[in-house]
C-alpha cells in the first residue's frame, strides 16, 4: 500500500505547517519533555486497567480482558466544522427515523418507486411484528452512531449508520477523563466542548420516550446479556452513570401487563429499557425460543404500550449496507432536502451493471457483505493477494446481492504517539446521536478510531485499531 503522505493530514498542511485547529496543542506538545511523555503514555494504559475499561475476548481456553489501545494525541475538530457536521447528522437521523416509521406502516417510499421492495424481503433485520405499530413518542432510533470518514478540508462522508445498538460511547467518555487526568494543563489552554454530560442527556432523552403507562419519573433500566458479554463494561458504566438499574433477562418478567424487575422488595415496573441485547434474543415467545437473555412476553407488553424498548426492535434494517446505498434518496424523500452529508459512492452488486464494474475492478475496491459488521467478511482490494481476490470473486458471483462495493477511500490521517515521535495514521469518527420526540441531541465529539498500523485503513478494535479523545473546539 502507499504511504500516508498522499492523504489529508488533519494536523498539518501539505507544506508541514500546523493547521489552526492544532496550533495550541502543538505549541504545548513542543514544550513537553520526551521522557515525561513516554511515561504518561504508559500511565494511560495502567489507568484503563485499574478502572476496568476492558472488553472481554473469549479464546479457546479462557476469557481474557483486553484494552482497546488508547492514543494520547487528541483528534481536533473546529467549531465551524462541527456545526456543519451536526446539521448533516441531524438531517440524516431524522430521515432514518421517518424511514423506519414509513417502512413499518404505509411504505410510501416503496410505493413511490424510490426503494426496491426486495431490500425489505432480503433484510434479516426486518421484523413483521413491528408492522402497523408506532413506538412511544414515535421514536425508533433512540441512540444512533453515525460513522464518518474525512478525505479533505471540507469533505466528510458517511460510511455507515448504526441504528441498532451502537457501542463505544464509554470510550468517548473515559478517553476524555483519562486525558483530563493526565494533561489538566492542556484543557486550561485549549477550550474544548465537554462530553461528560452524555449519560445525563441519555437518561433524559430515554425518559422523554417513556410509554403512556409510566409515572412522572420514568424508571429506566439498561438490559445487558450479562458479565460475559464483550461490552459488559460499557453496559455497567452507562447504567451507573445514568443512575439506572442494570438488568439481565432473568431479572425481568411480565407482571400485570408491565415489564417488571425483581427488586429486593418485589417486582417493580420498568418504563424504558435501553437494551443491549439483539432483537432475536429479546423475547423467546416471539423470536428465538432458546434465548435466555430476553423476557418472555415483552413484545406483547411493548405492542400494548406498556414499555419503551430502545432502540425499537427492527431498526437494524438501517444498518444494512444495501439500504445504506439508498440513503441519499431516503434523506431526500423524507426531508425534501438534498443530503448535507454525502454517502461514500457505493455499487450494489445486485445490479448487473454494477456487478460487472465491481468484478472488473476488484483490486481497487472495498467489497462488503450487506449484513456484515466489525470489519469482517470484507475484501480490501488493494491490500489483498491475487489469491484472496479470486476466492472472494467466487463468493461474489455466487450471491451478488449479498454484497456492495466502495472505492478504497483516502481516509484522513491524524498523528499518533509512537516511539519515534508523532506519525500519521488513518482515522474515522463516530458521533453519538440521541433522539427523543422533540429533539435530536448530538454530543460534541464522539469516538475517533485509529488504525495503529502504518498504512492500514482498518480501524476496528477487533483488528488492531485504537481510539483517541475527540475534541470539538469552542468558538
Amino acid at each position, binding site marked *: 500500500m502507499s504511504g500516508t503522505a498522499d492523504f489529508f493530514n488533519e494536523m498539518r498542511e501539505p507544506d508541514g505547517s500546523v493547521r489552526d485547529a492544532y496550533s495550541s496543542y502543538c505549541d504545548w506538545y513542543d514544550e513537553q519533555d520526551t521522557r515525561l511523555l513516554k511515561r504518561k503514555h504508559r500511565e494511560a494504559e495502567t489507568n484503563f486497567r*485499574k478502572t476496568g475499561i476492558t472488553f472481554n475476548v473469549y479464546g479457546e481456553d479462557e476469557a481474557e480482558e483486553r484494552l482497546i489501545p488508547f492514543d494520547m494525541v487528541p483528534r481536533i475538530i473546529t467549531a465551524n466544522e462541527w456545526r456543519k457536521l451536526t446539521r448533516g447528522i441531524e438531517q440524516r437521523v431524522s430521515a432514518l427515523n421517518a424511514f423506519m416509521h414509513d417502512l413499518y406502516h404505509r411504505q410510501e417510499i416503496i410505493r413511490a418507486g424510490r426503494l426496491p421492495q426486495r431490500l425489505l424481503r432480503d433484510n434479516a433485520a426486518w421484523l413483521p411484528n413491528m408492522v402497523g405499530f408506532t413506538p412511544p413518542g414515535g421514536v425508533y432510533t433512540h441512540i444512533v452512531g453515525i460513522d464518518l470518514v474525512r478525505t479533505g478540508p471540507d469533505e466528510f462522508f458517511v460510511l455507515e449508520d448504526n441504528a441498532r445498538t451502537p457501542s463505544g460511547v464509554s470510550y468517548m467518555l473515559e478517553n476524555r477523563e483519562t486525558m483530563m487526568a493526565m494533561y489538566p494543563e492542556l484543557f486550561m489552554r485549549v477550550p474544548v466542548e465537554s462530553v461528560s454530560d452524555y449519560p445525563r442527556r441519555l437518561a433524559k432523552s430515554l425518559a422523554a420516550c417513556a410509554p403512556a403507562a409510566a409515572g412522572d419519573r420514568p424508571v429506566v433500566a439498561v438490559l445487558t446479556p450479562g458479565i460475559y458479554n464483550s461490552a459488559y463494561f460499557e453496559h*455497567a458504566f452507562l447504567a451507573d452513570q445514568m443512575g439506572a*438499574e442494570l438488568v439481565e433477562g432473568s431479572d425481568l418478567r411480565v407482571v400485570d401487563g408491565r415489564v417488571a424487575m425483581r427488586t429486593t422488595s418485589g417486582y417493580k415496573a420498568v418504563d424504558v429499557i435501553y437494551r443491549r441485547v439483539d432483537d432475536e434474543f429479546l423475547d423467546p415467545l416471539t423470536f428465538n425460543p432458546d434465548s435466555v437473555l430476553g423476557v418472555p412476553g415483552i413484545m406483547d407488553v411493548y405492542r400494548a404500550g406498556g414499555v419503551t424498548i430502545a432502540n425499537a426492535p427492527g431498526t437494524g434494517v438501517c444498518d444494512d449496507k444495501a439500504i445504506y446505498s439508498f440513503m441519499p434518496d431516503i434523506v431526500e424523500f423524507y426531508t425534501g432536502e438534498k443530503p448535507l452529508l454525502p454517502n461514500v459512492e457505493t455499487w450494489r452488486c445486485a445490479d448487473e451493471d454494477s456487478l460487472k464494474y465491481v468484478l472488473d475492478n476488484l483490486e481497487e475496491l472495498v467489497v462488503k457483505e450487506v449484513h456484515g459488521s466489525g470489519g469482517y467478511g470484507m475484501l480490501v482490494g488493494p491490500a489483498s493477494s491475487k489469491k484472496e481476490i479470486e476466492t472472494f470473486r467466487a463468493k461474489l458471483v455466487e450471491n451478488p446481492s449479498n454484497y456492495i462495493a466502495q472505492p478504497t477511500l483516502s481516509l484522513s490521517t491524524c498523528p499518533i504517539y509512537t516511539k519515534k515521535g508523532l506519525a500519521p495514521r488513518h482515522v474515522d469518527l463516530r458521533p453519538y446521536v440521541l433522539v427523543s420526540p422533540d429533539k435530536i441531541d448530538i454530543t460534541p465529539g464522539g469516538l475517533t478510531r485509529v488504525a495503529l498500523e502504518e498504512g492500514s485503513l482498518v480501524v476496528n478494535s477487533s483488528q488492531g485499531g485504537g481510539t483517541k479523545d475527540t475534541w470539538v473546539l469552542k468558538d
Partner: protein
Amino acid sequence: MLGRTANGLFWMFRYLERAENTARLLDAGMRMALTRDLVTAEEEWRSVISTAGQRAAYEAKHGTYTGSQVWNFMLRDKANPSSILAMFGLVRQNARLARNAISGELWEAINENWLVIDEQLNKPVAENRVLDTVATIRRAGTLAHGALAGSMLRDEGYHFARAGTFIERADSISRILDIKYYLLLPSLSYVGSSLDTGQWDQVLRSVSGDRAYRWLNAGQIDAKGICEFLILDERFPRSLAFCYCALRDDLAALARLHGTEGQSNMLMRDADTRLTDLTIEEIFDQGLHEFLVEFTQDNAAIADAISTDYRFLA
C-alpha cells in the same frame, strides 16, 4: 435494588472475607512451620489445610504435606475451588456484577488488587513470596472495607455487603475453633504442653487476635480464655459476639429500609438471645463442639433467610 445485585454484594463480601481468612490461616501456618522441626511442620501444614476446609481436595492431589505444596494449593491451584486466586476472582466477578451498586472507589480497591494478585499468582510461589500475597489480600480487604465505610451510600447495598462479611466471618471463626478443639482435646496428655500452647497461639494468629488477646490477658494462654475471647468478647472484631452485634444492626436496618421484617430478622433475634448473657462455663458444660456445630447451622440458616427475604434468586 435488584435482588440479583443484592446477591452480588452479599457474596462479593463473603468471598472477600473468605479470601482474607484463608490468607490469615496461611500466615499463621507459615509462622508455625518456621518455628517447628520438620516432622511437626508436616503436622502443622496438615492442620492448616484441615482448618481451611480443603483437606479432601488437597489429598485428592497430594499424598504428602510440604509447605510449598500446601501454600501453592491454597494460593493458586486450579484443582482447588477455594484457592485465594479463585476466591478473589469471585470477589471481582461479583463486584462487576454489582458494579452500578458500588462506589468507584470500592470497585478500584478490588480491581487494582486483583491485578496485583493475578500477577503474583500466575506462577508457582516461592517461600519468600508467600507473605507478599497474604499482604496484598489483607490490603485489598482493608481498602475495600475502608471504601465501603467512606464512600458508600447507607442504603440497602451497604447493609448487604456488611451482612455478607459478618456471616462469613462468624462461619470461619466457628470452624477454626471447632477444628482445633476437636484435634486437641481428646488427647489430654497435650493439655498444658508446649504443643498445645502453640496450637492455641496459632488459632489466635489465624484470626489476627494474638496481640489483642495478649493485651487483655497479660500473656496467659489457655483454651478457655481463648474460647471466651473468640466467642463472647464483643470488643474483638473477629469474635462471634462482635459479628452478631454487627449483623443484628445490619439486618435491623434492612428491615427498616424495607418497612417489613422477614424470617432473617426472626432467626437473628433467636440467635442473639442465645448468645447474650451466655458464659464460657455454660458453653463448656454444653460441649464446645456441640455449641459450635449448632452455631454454624444457625448461621447458615440466617444466610439462607436473607437470600429468600430479599429475593436474591429468581
